[in-house]
């Protein structure tokens, strides 16, 4: 199944429990890669809106590991909760590839295997293909649903604004 209106494309597979996100950036692979491996830069873009990201460790190299915290930082997300995440870097090839695991510590037995491919488009642009694979459809769908629940907390007003502005 595919939905694509703007630039970000999401593929929710029906054969295997995976989600794939595809997005092109107007920057060469070394820059996009750095934004994924430098904890200071990561904290500026990676968490959901209304949350702050605090990195405990982020040792992005083959065999390294990471742990970070998402904490609510405005009144909307303030109704949310703190969430720790951790994982291991299985394979890291600068400007090309990151293979890592991902666990939300609230469900420590559940793990996603994530593969991030940084494809050099050759004209100063990069296509990122990020695939998350989990071990059951129920886990995968809960993953997609967590995005939904977060969206509900934010309220539908923003969506309505976008729709009335003709952005959708």
């Amino acid at each position, binding site marked *: *199944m595919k*939905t*694509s*209106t*703007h*630039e*970000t*494309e*999401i593929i*929710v597979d*029906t*054969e295997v429990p995976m*989600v794939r*996100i595809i*997005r092109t*950036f*107007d*920057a*060469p*692979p*070394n*820059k*996009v*890669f*750095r*934004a994924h*491996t*430098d*904890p*200071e*830069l990561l904290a*500026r*873009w*990676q*968490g*959901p*809106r209304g949350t702050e990201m605090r990195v405990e460790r982020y040792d*992005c*190299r083959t065999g390294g590991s990471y742990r970070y915290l998402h904490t609510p930082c405005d009144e909307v997300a303030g109704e949310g909760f703190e969430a720790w995440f951790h994982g291991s870097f299985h394979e890291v090839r*600068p*400007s090309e590839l990151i293979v890592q695991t991902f666990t939300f510590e609230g469900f420590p037995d559940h793990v996603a295997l994530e593969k991030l491919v940084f494809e050099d488009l050759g004209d100063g642009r990069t296509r990122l293909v990020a695939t998350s694979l989990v071990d059951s*459809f*129920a886990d*995968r*769908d*809960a993953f*997609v*649903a967590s*995005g*939904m629940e*977060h*969206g509900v907390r934010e309220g539908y007003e923003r*969506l309505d604004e976008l729709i009335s502005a003709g952005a959708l």
Partner: protein
Amino acid sequence: MAVDQLSRVFAALADPTRRDMVARLAVADATVNELAEPFAMSLQAVSKHLRVLEDAGLVSRSREAQRRPAHLEAEVLDMMTAWIERYRRQAEERFSRLDTLLAELPDDVDPLPPRPVADGEGARP
């Protein structure tokens, strides 16, 4: 739509035969016999697939009419699309912040950050 229903919908659509049946029902309601036609499959097997689609809420069957045609519940498919769209929008939000950040980075930036100095390492000669 609850998470378990979303899971049932995804699971129901994981089978290529059932996807074909959904595509067929998107055109018009159909009986078990009509659905069985394009497949080299027993009516029992078709009924079994239909029951999975019914349990997921994707298909309903009239109780009154003798032919009991199956009807596609298109709004269940729409709801699933809405879930995926919200997930996509959340990713897009992150990526537009990343766009802003990328514009600030120098073009020749190292793909990896400098290695942090471990405790005591700096003290060594």
